[in-house]
C-alpha cells in the first residue's frame, strides 16, 4: 500500500514537472506544407537541415553551432562540409538522424520525399517542411525558418535584403524589350526548364521570355529541332558539376553553332549551385543573368 502511494506521488511529481517543462518551452507552428508542427524545445538547440538551400539560410542566420546535421550536397558555406552528413539526394540515414537527437529537422518539399516526413515523425522527430518554388517563396521561407528557429529579426532583415536586390533588378530593367531565353539543365539529352519553376521565375525577373510553354512539364526533354524553330536570343546553361563551375564540352556546343544565340555570343554558363537552390543567394544568380542579358542596363562594367 505504502509503495503504491509513493509511486503515485512520484508519478504526480513527474507529470507536474513535465507539464511545467512543456509550458516553458514548447511552441506550435504550421509549416509551409500546412502541417502542424510542435517544437518541444524552443528555440531548438540541435537542428538538422535536409536541403542545401535550408543549410545556407541557417548558416546566414548565424546558427553555426545549432546545426548538427546536413546533407552530402550541402557545400555552402564551407563550414557546412564539416557537419555530420545524414542524407544524400533523397535517401536519409534514419538511424544516424535519430542518434544525433535533433530538436528540429527542416526538410524541403522539393528535395525530400513526403513519405519520409511521416516516417521521421513516427520515430518521434520534429519535422518542419518548407515549400519554395519562386523568388517570392524564398522571402517567405526565410522568414518562416527564422521564426521556427527563434531568429525572427535576423530572418526578416535577410528577407528584406533579398527583396531589395530583386527590386533593384526589376527597377533597372523597367520597360526593357524582352529577350527570348532557353535554359538547359541537362546536356545529354537536352533538358530544359519551364516557366513554373524557380529558374523560370529568375529568368522572367531578369527580363527573359522563356521559350517553353507554361502548361508543359517543368523539366522537359527537348528535341534540338525545337531550339532551331524557336531560335532563342539567349541560351543559358546550368553547370552540372557539384563543386566546379563547368560548362558543356565543345561537342555539345557545336550542335548549337547555327543558333542566333551562338552567333551573337549569347550562350552563358550559370553556376547551378546558386541558380537551382531556393536560398538567399539566388539574387546572385538573378543579378548575374540580368547582367548577361542586358549589360547596358545593368552596368555590367562595374
Amino acid at each position, binding site marked *: 500500500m505504502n509503495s503504491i502511494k509513493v509511486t503515485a506521488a512520484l508519478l504526480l511529481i513527474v507529470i507536474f514537472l513535465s507539464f511545467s517543462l512543456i509550458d516553458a518551452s514548447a511552441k506550435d507552428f504550421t509549416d509551409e506544407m500546412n502541417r502542424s508542427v510542435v517544437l518541444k524545445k524552443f528555440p531548438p538547440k540541435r537542428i538538422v537541415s535536409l536541403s542545401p538551400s535550408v543549410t545556407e539560410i541557417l548558416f546566414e542566420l548565424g546558427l553555426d553551432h545549432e546545426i548538427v546535421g546536413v546533407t*552530402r550536397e550541402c557545400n555552402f558555406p564551407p563550414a557546412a562540409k564539416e557537419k*555530420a*552528413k*545524414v*542524407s*544524400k*539526394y*533523397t*535517401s536519409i*540515414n*534514419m*538511424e*544516424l538522424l*535519430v*542518434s544525433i*537527437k535533433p530538436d528540429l529537422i527542416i526538410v524541403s*518539399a*522539393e528535395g525530400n*520525399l513526403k*513519405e*519520409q516526413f511521416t*516516417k521521421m515523425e*513516427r*520515430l*518521434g522527430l520534429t519535422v518542419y517542411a518548407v515549400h519554395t518554388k519562386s523568388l517570392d517563396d524564398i522571402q517567405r521561407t526565410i522568414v518562416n525558418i527564422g521564426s521556427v528557429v527563434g531568429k525572427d529579426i535576423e530572418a526578416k532583415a535577410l528577407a528584406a535584403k533579398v527583396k531589395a536586390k530583386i527590386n533593384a533588378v526589376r527597377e533597372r530593367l523597367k520597360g526593357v524589350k524582352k529577350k527570348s531565353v532557353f535554359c538547359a539543365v541537362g546536356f545529354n539529352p537536352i533538358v530544359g526548364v519551364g516557366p513554373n519553376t524557380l529558374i523560370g521565375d529568375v529568368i522572367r525577373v531578369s527580363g527573359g521570355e522563356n521559350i517553353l510553354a507554361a502548361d508543359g*512539364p*517543368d*523539366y522537359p*526533354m527537348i528535341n534540338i529541332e525545337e531550339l532551331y524553330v524557336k531560335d532563342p536570343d539567349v541560351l543559358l546553361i546550368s553547370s552540372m558539376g557539384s563543386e566546379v563551375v563547368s560548362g558543356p564540352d565543345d561537342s555539345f556546343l557545336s550542335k548549337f553553332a547555327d543558333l542566333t544565340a551562338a552567333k551573337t555570343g549569347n550562350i552563358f554558363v550559370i553556376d547551378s549551385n546558386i541558380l537551382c537552390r531556393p536560398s538567399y543567394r539566388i539574387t546572385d544568380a538573378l543579378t548575374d543573368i540580368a547582367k548577361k542579358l542586358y549589360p547596358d542596363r545593368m552596368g555590367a562594367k562595374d
Partner: protein
Amino acid sequence: MKNWILNLTILLVLLFLVVIISASVGSADINIFTASKIILNHIFGFFSKSWSDSDALIILSIRIPRIILALIVGGALSCAGAVFQALLKNPLADPYVLGVSSGSAVGACIAIIFGLSGTLLGLAGIPLFAFIGAMITITLVYMIARDGMKINVYTMLLAGVICGTFFSAVIMFFISISASDKLRGIMFWLMGDLSSGEPSSIAVAMVVISIGIAGMYLFASEINLMTFGEESAVSLGVNVERVKIILFVLASLITATAVSISGLIGFVGLIIPHIARMLYGPDHKVLIPSSVLLGSAFLVLADTIARVIIAPYELPVGVVTAFCGAPFFVYLLKRKKSYGYI
C-alpha cells in the same frame, strides 16, 4: 532425411546469426550485447534497462522492421524463383519473368504521379497500387497463355516477357512526362528499397507470403513429378493443369506482395534457388524451405552491407545482391560441374 534435418538446423542458426549481426551494425554505434539485450527485452522483458531511449528506438523501430522486411522479401523472392524455374522448365526464370515487376511498377508510378491513396486489408498507398498492377499483369499473362482449360508454359513465358516489355515502355512514358518531384519518388521505388516499409504493410505481407510459401510447399511432390515431364506426371495421377494454375497464382501472389512493399530487388530470386539446388539437390521438399531460408539470410546480409559499406550513405540493395551473389554463384558452378538446373 536425417541429413536434411541437420542442414535445416544449420540454416536456421545461420539465419539467426545474420539477424543478430545485422541488428548490431549500422551508423549508430550500438554493440552486439546491447542490441541483443534490447531485442530480448522487447520480447521477454527480463533485462533491467541499461541502454538509452534512442538506442532502443534505433534497434526496434529502424533496424528490426527493416530486417523483418528483408527476411520476408528474400524468402518470398527465392521461393517464387524456385517454383517458376521448375514450372517454366527454364533456368533463367525468376520471380519477375512473368512481368509482375513491370506491372507493379506501373501501378506504383500511377499512384505516385496522380497522388492516389487508399487502403485495402492493411496495404495502403503506393504498395496497394503496386499490388493491383501486379495482379492485373498476372491475369493478363494468364489470359494470353490460356488455351481452353490448359496453359502452355512456353506461351506463358513469352506472354510474360511481352507484357513486361510493354509495361516497361509505359513506365518510361510516365517518367518522361512527369514533374520532377514525382520523378524522384518513382526512381526511388524502381531502385528497390527496404528502408521505407510501413509496419502495417509488413505485417500484411508477412501473412500473405507465409500462406503462399506453405501452399506451394504442399505441392512439392507434384512439382518433383512434373519436372520429369508433364505426361509422366499425368500418368502418375497428378492433375497437372490444376497444379500449374495454383502454383502460378501462389508464386505470382507472393512476388506481387514482395515487390509492392520493397520495390524491385533483382538477383535474389534468380540465383538463390540455383544455389539451394547445388547445395541440397533438386527435391522440392528440401528445395523450397532451403530456398526460403537462404534467400532470407542472403537478403538480410546484402541489405546490411548496403547500409554500412559507404556509411553514412546507403547503396541500393540490388547492387550488393548482384555484386556479391554473382561471383559466389560462379564459384559454385565451377566446383560442381555436373550441375543440372532441375
